[in-house]
Every structure is written in structure tokens, then in C-alpha cells.
């Protein structure tokens, strides 16, 4: 590619031969262009047109009137967003949930992989592993329905256990104190097996001679885990940790939205769900687009920072 560019620069005065060369290249690659052009058209229509519609954040946008008919309001929506105390509450909610999940959900897959590695019975190991992948294939709607099943104050299993212990059942779902807890526990349920895959493969790629050497040095199983296995998975852990921190401001729309109810809104409302309600349900497109843009710019910055750190740490990056 670069050599082609250099050559064309050299022969810039010899325009007829250059034109011939360019034409030749295009003609040789005509089938490639037949692939490239439809893909570009698709990208423009479905990925870049939405970016064009970010312009709606500067208008009092009405769907039927378009940009011409809608009133230009400048930065009004951004000002309203940034001056609203609600915005910071939404961001705080997202950060609280993500910090808790980083503390609890995130290390679980590694712990699971390390423990699974110590299971000596092969068929049992295989069964545990296969079952642990299952939640990955269950949709959020079903997950939230299961949560409702188990936590229901009248019909749920947990209420039953409370009754057996002689306590009055708690309505977990309508109590904001439990919102993060429910999220975290179900998050562990969803990710513990699936996210362990990468650790399991990191463990299996550890050089077996290291274990042999450790045994000769008299290391028992615990020492082998401590000095061979854990150092072997640590680079993976650090890399995933940095990436996870880059995702600090993102939240899973489906799960948050479906677990929300009027009683826990104080802690469960986050930017994406708020944007959905304002934008799609109340049709305040301008305000919602401004909020969405604000959110994506913040998260992109965070991802870029995390990515540059991981580049320095491990020379592997997300992009």
C-alpha cells in the first residue's frame, strides 16, 4: 500500500502513466471493490447515520418535522443535563454497581477456574464446567423472571426459607437496599462459568515442566498453586481487570431496566435507562440524544485510558 503511494508520488508529473497505473490497480481489484462498496454503504446507513442523528441533541427535535422543521436550541439540552443533580445520581448509581461488581463478580471466575483445576475427577470436572456455561445462554428476561420466582414474597423459595426460620419474608424486589445485592448475585450466576474459560485456558497453557521442577523442589499442591498456577494466570487477570475498569461507566441496559420498579428507582435509575425513558417513551429526542452522547463520550474516554494503560502493562490492547 505505502509503496504504491510512493510510486505514484514519484511519477506525479508523468500523469498519463500514473492514470494508467491507478486504473490498472482499480481494474485488477474490481471484485474487491464490489465487496467493499456494499459494505461501505451498509456502514454509512446503519452505523454512521446514527452518528449524524447525534445532531438532534442541538434541536428541539420532532420526528415528523425533521431537522428543518425542528427548532434549533444550541447547547440547551447539554446545559440542562449537566446542571441537573439527577445526572450525577445516575452516574453514581452506575459507578456503585460497577465497583461492587468489580469487587465481587470479577474475581469469581478466576477463583472458580483455580478450584476447578484442583478437581481430580475428570467426569465430575467436565460436568461442573458444562453446567457453569449454561447461564450464558439464558436471556436476561428469563433471568429476571427467575429472580422474581425465587424472591417473590408470597411464592418464592426464599420466602419459604424465611418462614421455616420463623421470620417474616422480606420483599427483596421492592426494597432498594437489596437492588445491588440482587444484581451482584445474579451477575455471579451469569458470569462465573463463562468468564472462567479464559482462565482455564491460561492454566492449561502453563508449562508442565514448571510443576515438575516445583515437585522436585519439594513443593506440595498448595505451594504449586501459589508459586506456579497463580503467577501463570495473573497476567490474564491484570489485563481483564484493566479492561473491566474501562467499562466502569457502562451498564447492561436489559438487566437494569427489567429489575427496575417504582420503589427502587432511587438506586436503580442509570443513564441508559433514563435515556430510554426520556427519548423513546416520552419522545424528548433532543434531551435524550444529548444524554446519550454525554454517556458515550465519557465511556469512550475511560476505555481509551484503560486501553493505553494495558498497552503499557502487557503490550496487548483491546483494539
Amino acid at each position, binding site marked *: 500500500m505505502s509503496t504504491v503511494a510512493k510510486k505514484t508520488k514519484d511519477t506525479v508529473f508523468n500523469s498519463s502513466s500514473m492514470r494508467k497505473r491507478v486504473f490498472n*490497480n482499480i481494474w485488477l481489484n474490481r*471484485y*474487491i471493490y*464490489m*465487496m*467493499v462498496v456494499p*459494505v*461501505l454503504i*451498509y*456502514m454509512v*446507513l446503519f452505523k*454512521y*447515520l446514527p452518528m449524524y*442523528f*447525534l445532531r*438532534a441533541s442541538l434541536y428541539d*427535535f420532532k420526528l415528523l418535522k425533521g431537522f428543518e422543521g425542528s427548532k434549533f436550541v444550541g447547547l440547551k439540552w447539554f446545559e440542562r443535563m449537566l446542571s441537573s443533580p439527577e445526572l450525577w445520581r445516575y452516574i453514581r448509581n452506575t459507578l456503585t454497581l460497577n465497583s461492587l461488581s468489580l469487587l465481587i463478580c470479577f474475581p469469581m471466575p478466576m477463583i472458580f477456574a483455580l478450584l476447578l483445576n*484442583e*478437581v481430580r475427577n475428570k467426569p465430575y470436572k467436565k*460436568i*461442573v464446567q*458444562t*453446567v457453569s*456455561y*449454561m*447461564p450464558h*445462554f*439464558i*436471556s*436476561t*428476561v*428469563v433471568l*429476571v*423472571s*427467575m429472580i422474581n*420466582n425465587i424472591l417473590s414474597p*408470597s*411464592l418464592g*423459595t426464599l420466602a*419459604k426459607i424465611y418462614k421455616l426460620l420463623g421470620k417474616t419474608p422480606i420483599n427483596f424486589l*421492592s426494597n432498594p437496599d437489596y437492588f445491588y445485592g440482587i444484581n451482584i448475585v445474579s451477575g455471579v450466576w451469569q458470569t462465573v462459568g463463562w468468564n472462567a474459560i479464559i482462565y482455564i*485456558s491460561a492454566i492449561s497453557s502453563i508449562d508442565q515442566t514448571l510443576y515438575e521442577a516445583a515437585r522436585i523442589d519439594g513443593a*506440595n499442591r*498448595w505451594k504449586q498453586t501459589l508459586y506456579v498456577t497463580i503467577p501463570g494466570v495473573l497476567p490474564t487477570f491484570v489485563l481483564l481487570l484493566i479492561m473491566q475498569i474501562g467499562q466502569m461507566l457502562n451498564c447492561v*441496559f*436489559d438487566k437494569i431496566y427489567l429489575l427496575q*420498579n*417504582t420503589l427502587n428507582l432511587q438506586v436503580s435509575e442509570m443513564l*441508559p435507562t433514563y*435515556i430510554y425513558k426520556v*427519548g*423513546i417513551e416520552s419522545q424528548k429526542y433532543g434531551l*435524550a*440524544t444529548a444524554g*446519550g*452522547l454525554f454517556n*458515550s463520550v465519557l465511556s*469512550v474516554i475511560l*476505555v*481509551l485510558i484503560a486501553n493505553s494503560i494495558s498497552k503499557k502493562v502487557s503490550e496487548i490492547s483491546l483494539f
Partner: protein
Amino acid sequence: MKDTVQTTTGKRIILRKVKYDQDYIKRSTGEKVFNVCNIILMALLLVFLLYPVLNVLAISMSSETEVMAANVTFYPIGYNPQAYVTIFKDSELWRSILNSAIVAFGGCALSLIALCIAAYPLAYGQFYGKKLYSVIIMFTMWFQGGIVPLFLTIQNLGLYDSLWALILNGLISAYNVVIIRSYFNSIPFSVVESARIDGANDFTILFRLIIPLSKPVIATVALWVIVGHWNDYMNPLILISSTKNHTLQLKLKSLVLAAESSTSNLTTLSQTTAHKGVAALSTQVKNAVLVVSMIPMISIYPFIQRYFISGVMLGAVKG
């Protein structure tokens, strides 16, 4: 244990592998205790992972009185398959399953063709504008318009409330392009070159040569796309409005989580549904619907999990 190894010179060397496993080295008491604890811990994890699913299955097949008394845990009490007979007659549910199947399988087929066509020029093309083409695709991995701009785009393209909106919106994702391109790159370039010398055009090379050689990655991405579409809730929520176009997840939400998510109170649930003139669904029917929605993914995943796992590794190695 004896193993024979063929060396490069053709001599067979006998290696003596010492088996260090439990059969040969006497285990300490601490190790024995740990093994037992570990097996128990894994069993508890199995219970934690399986209980919600078994609970749903059990409730769907139990009798009304047992469900109302919250006696049903992980096995059905008072076996009663009436709920399945009820949902078998629900044409709206089947319509939504059909819609989801169209989006998942139709979307998958179109997606694969589009992704291969998008990845081929990146892997093998030497054309003017390759750099730009690559940037145009990669940029969408970093930054996207967001919920409301997507909604406005689909409205303006006239695709709102059609299944095409769901299929086309998820057609080409930059991440999948990267995965497929990196697999294409691992195929020796001489394969493409010699086919070109033989006079094959790029479409022939892609469909006759490269795609058959890339079955593992195609299978992986296909499954990602199918599971993604089948379990997707957010995109249908934003892009679909009429009941006849509802996908399974939207239908599930309206059947199972209808009022619970807003108030999580069973009395208001029956009031609101009665108000709308819809007969309130029994708990068994709700759970039967959940079971039906889970069956396709849960019944196939143990057989195809190796493709998923290789996919996770592809994503990690890609760097």
C-alpha cells in the same frame, strides 16, 4: 507409563513418564481435606447454578395448590402438564417464536455472508483506500450513536417496526469482522495467490476456497449471532412496536414480567391485567413459557460449546 516418540531421524525413543498423580505420591491429610472440601464446594456451585432453572421447570409442571403454597422447589409436586397445553394453543406466543427464529436464523445467514464479504478485502485486498476502509469499520467498535439516534435512523430508513430493522442493525459488527479477518489471515496467502493465477475471481476464492477453510470461525460467529438475536431484548424494545412483530423476549416480558417490574406486587398485577381485559396468567403458565423459550439454546449448547470456547480464545488472542 511408557511413551514412544518418533524423532526427526526416525529413531523411536522410549520416554519414561513418571506419573506424579495421587496414585504414586502419598497425599497429606491437609490435601485430602482440601479435596473433599473442593468437591463439596463445586457441588454447592452446581446447586446454585441449576436451582433457578429447575425451579422454573418444577413450577411449570406442578399443581396450582402446591405452587400457591410455595411448596415447589426443584422437583414438580402434583404433576400437572396443563400449562403446556395452554401455551400450545397460544398463537401469539408461537408467532413471537417464529419471529425470533426468523431474526436469529435469517439474520445469522445474512450476517455471515456480509461479514465474510467485509473481512475478505481486509485480509487479502491490496486496493486504494484500504486504510480508510479499515478505519471506517474499526471506528464503530469505539463509538456508536446510541439508543435514540439508532431509533431515529431506523425511523428515517422506514424500517421501524419490521423484523428487517433487527436483522440489518446487527448485520455487521466490527468485532466479528476482526475475528473473521484474523482467521482469514491465518490461511496461507499462497492459497489465494495461486487461485488468482489460475484465473479465479475474488468472489469464487472467497466462497469456494476461503469460507470452506474457515468453518471453525464461521461456526463460532454463527452461534454468537444466533444466541445474540434470540436473547436480545433491548433492540426489539426500541425498534419494534406492533404485537405481530414482537420477538420472543418482548412477548416473554409482556407475559411474565408484565406488572411485576413496575410494582412487584401480585394484587396490582391481577388488577392491571383485569383492567386491560386480559385474563391473568397462572404462575405455571408463566413458567412454562419461560421453559419453552429456554429450550432451544439450553438443549444445543452442550454440543456446540467447543465452538463458543474457541471463539472466546479467538477474541482473546486477537489482541
